[in-house]
C-alpha cells in the first residue's frame, strides 16, 4: 500500500508541475499586466522600472521558478480586480462549487447504478427503453439549455423554485459556507445540481448498462448460473463487481470533467462559485486569478484521479496495492 501510494503521489506531483507550467505560460499570452495595474498615464520609464522591480524582465524560467516557490507556500499571486490574494478569492468561492458538485454527484450515485443495472438485466422492459431514450436526450442537450429550460418551467411558470443564487447558508468550522444544511439552500441547489447532473448522469447510466451487459455474457457469469446461485447474487456480486472496474476508471475522469461544466451551470444560475468567478476573471483579464483557478482545478483533477486509482486498486485483485 505504502509503495503504491508513494508512486502514485510522485506521479501526481509531476502532473501538477506540468499543469502549473502550462497555466503560468498562459500569463504571457494575456497582454501586459502593467496596463491592468497602473493604467495609461504612467510614463514608459517608470513602467520599465516597475517591470524590473516585479521581475517581469527576467528570463521565463526564472519567473516560473519564483512563481513555483510562492505557489508551494500558498501564494498564487494577487488578483488585480479584488486586490486580494488570488487563493483567498478562490477559497471564498470554492465551497459554493463544491456544494454544486456534491448535489450533482448525489443524483448520479442515486440513479446511475439502479437504472443502469436494471437496463442491463431487462433490456426489453419498457422502463429500460424509456431510460435509454431519455439518456440520449440528456447527453445531447447542452447543459445551459437544460438549465434555461428548468428555470423556465420550475421558476418562471410554476414558481416552485428559485432561479438564481445560493439561498441561506451556514458556516461550517467558521470558514466553510454551505447551502447543504438549510431548506432554503437546498431549494436553491436543486435546479443547478440537476442541470449539472443532466449530462453526466445519462453517461453513467449508459456506461453501466453496456459494461454490465458485456459482463453478463462472460463465461464466469454463465458458470455462476450453472452453480445454481440466486440471481440477485449473480447480478450484484458476480456481474456488478466486474462492471464497477471500468466504470470507476471512466467515472473518475467524468467527475473531473464535471468541474468544467460548473462554469456553464454557475453562469446560468448566477451561482457564486469559482466557475462563475473564472468567467468574470476572463472578462476582466484578471490574469493572476485565471492562473490560480487553472491550478486549483488541475489540483482537483489530480486528487480525484489519485483517489479513483486507489479505489480501483482496492476493487481489482489483479492490482497489487499491498506491495509487500
Amino acid at each position: 500500500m505504502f509503495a503504491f501510494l508513494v508512486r502514485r503521489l510522485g506521479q501526481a506531483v509531476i502532473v501538477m508541475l506540468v499543469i502549473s507550467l502550462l497555466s503560468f505560460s498562459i500569463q504571457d499570452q494575456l497582454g501586459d499586466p502593467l496596463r491592468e495595474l497602473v493604467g495609461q498615464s504612467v510614463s514608459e520609464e517608470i513602467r520599465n522600472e516597475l517591470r524590473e522591480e516585479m521581475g517581469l524582465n527576467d528570463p521565463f524560467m526564472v519567473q516560473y521558478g519564483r512563481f513555483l516557490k510562492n505557489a508551494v507556500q500558498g501564494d498564487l499571486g494577487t488578483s488585480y480586480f479584488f486586490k486580494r490574494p488570488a487563493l483567498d478569492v478562490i477559497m471564498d468561492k470554492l465551497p459554493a462549487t463544491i456544494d454544486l458538485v456534491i448535489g450533482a454527484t448525489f443524483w448520479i450515485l442515486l440513479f446511475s447504478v439502479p437504472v443502469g443495472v436494471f437496463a442491463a438485466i431487462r433490456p426489453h422492459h419498457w422502463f429500460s427503453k424509456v431510460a435509454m431514450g431519455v439518456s440520449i436526450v440528456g447527453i445531447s442537450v447542452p447543459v445551459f439549455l437544460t438549465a434555461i429550460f428548468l428555470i423556465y418551467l420550475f421558476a418562471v411558470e410554476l414558481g416552485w423554485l428559485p432561479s438564481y443564487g445560493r439561498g441561506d447558508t451556514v458556516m461550517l468550522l467558521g470558514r466553510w459556507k454551505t447551502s447543504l444544511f438549510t431548506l432554503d439552500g437546498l431549494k436553491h441547489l436543486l435546479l443547478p445540481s440537476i442541470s449539472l447532473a443532466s449530462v453526466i448522469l445519462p453517461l453513467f447510466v449508459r456506461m453501466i448498462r453496456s459494461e454490465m451487459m458485456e459482463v453478463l455474457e462472460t463465461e464466469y457469469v454463465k458458470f455462476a448460473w450453472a452453480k445454481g446461485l440466486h440471481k440477485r447474487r449473480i447480478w450484484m456480486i458476480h456481474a456488478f463487481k466486474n462492471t464497477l472496474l471500468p466504470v470507476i476508471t471512466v467515472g473518475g475522469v467524468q467527475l473531473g470533467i464535471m468541474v468544467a461544466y460548473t462554469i456553464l451551470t454557475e453562469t446560468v444560475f448566477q451561482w457564486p462559485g469559482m466557475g462563475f468567478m473564472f468567467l468574470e476573471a476572463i472578462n476582466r483579464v484578471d490574469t493572476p486569478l485565471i492562473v490560480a483557478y487553472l491550478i486549483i482545478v488541475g489540483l482537483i483533477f489530480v486528487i480525484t484521479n489519485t483517489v479513483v486509482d486507489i479505489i480501483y486498486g482496492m476493487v481489482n485483485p489483479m492490482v497489487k496495492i499491498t506491495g509487500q
Partner: protein
Amino acid sequence: MDKLLLSVKNLEVVFPLRTGAVTAIRDVSFELNQGERIGIVGESGAGKSITAFAILNLISKPGYLASGSIEFDGIDLAEADEDLMRQIRGNRISMIFQDPMMTLNPVLTIGTQMEETILAHRDTSRDDARKIAIEKLKAVQIPSAETRLDQYPHELSGGMRQRVVIAIALLTDPQLIVADEPTTALDVTIQAEILELLLDLCNEFDVGLILITHDLGVVSQVTQRILVMYAGRIIEQGSTSSIIENPMHPYTKGLIGALPEMTTPGEKLNQIPGVMPSLQDIPSGCPFHNRCRYIQDVCRSRLPDLAKREERLIACHFPIQYD
C-alpha cells in the same frame, strides 16, 4: 440392476434469429444410468454444448427448448420452474466448462466462489462450507488447500484452475457432472492428468458423467458409451469399445481415421473431406451425404432414421458391416 438417472427424449432447441429460425439440435434422445459415463463427440457446431446446456435449461438467449422432455431422477426438467431448476443446478447436476481461464470470476477469491455454491444449496455455516471446500480441494489434489482459498484465480495456473472448477463441481456431491470440453484449453500433459482425476473421482463418488469433446481419444479413455453428433442430430450411439473398434457410421469411421494415433508418423492426417453444413442449409436426405464415401442415390433424398442394429443405434442407410 442399473438405476436410470437421466432420460432425454426428442430434444429440439431453436434459435429464432433475424435471418430466420435455426434448429440447433433436433430429435436428440439418450439415457444415462446412475454412475454411468457417456461421451458426446462431433465436430465444432454439431450441437454438443447446446445439448448439455439444454439439460440445465441454460441455453443462451434467444435460444429455447422447442420440444422434448428431460427426466432426471423422476423430475421433468423441461417443465421445471426457475426455482426448482436453480436447486438442481450446481447441486444435483454440476457443470465443468471448457476454459478454466474464463470460468472463474476474476474479482472473487477461490474460497468465496466455493463457499457460495455450498451456501446456495445447503443450510450450513460459512465455517462448515469452508471445511467442505478444503476437503474437495484436497480431493482434486491441490497442494496447500487452505491458502488457496484466499487466492484469486489469476494467482493459479490453468491446470490448477481446472482442478478448482472440478472441486466446485464436486462440492455438493452431485449425481451427474456435465463436462463441456474440460481439457481442450489445457496443455497435453495436463490434459491427461485432469482426465484421470475426473475418471477417478466419478468412480470414487459414483457420479454420472456426460463428457463433451471433439476428441475421440479422450472419450475412449473415460467413457463407457458414446453418442456421435452431426449437424444437430445423434447419428450413432453404442458402447465405447464397440464404436472405436467397429464404427458403423461412415462419419464415425472418418472421425476415428482422423485420430493422430491412426496415422503413420510423417503422413498427412486422414481428415474427412469437406465441412459440416451450416444449420441454415442442411442438405436434403442424409446431412452427411455430400462428404460420404459410400453415397448412394437414396442418401440424397431420404433422411435415415436412428435405428437399432445389434447393440447400436445408427442413422445411416448403408452402415459399414463387420463380420
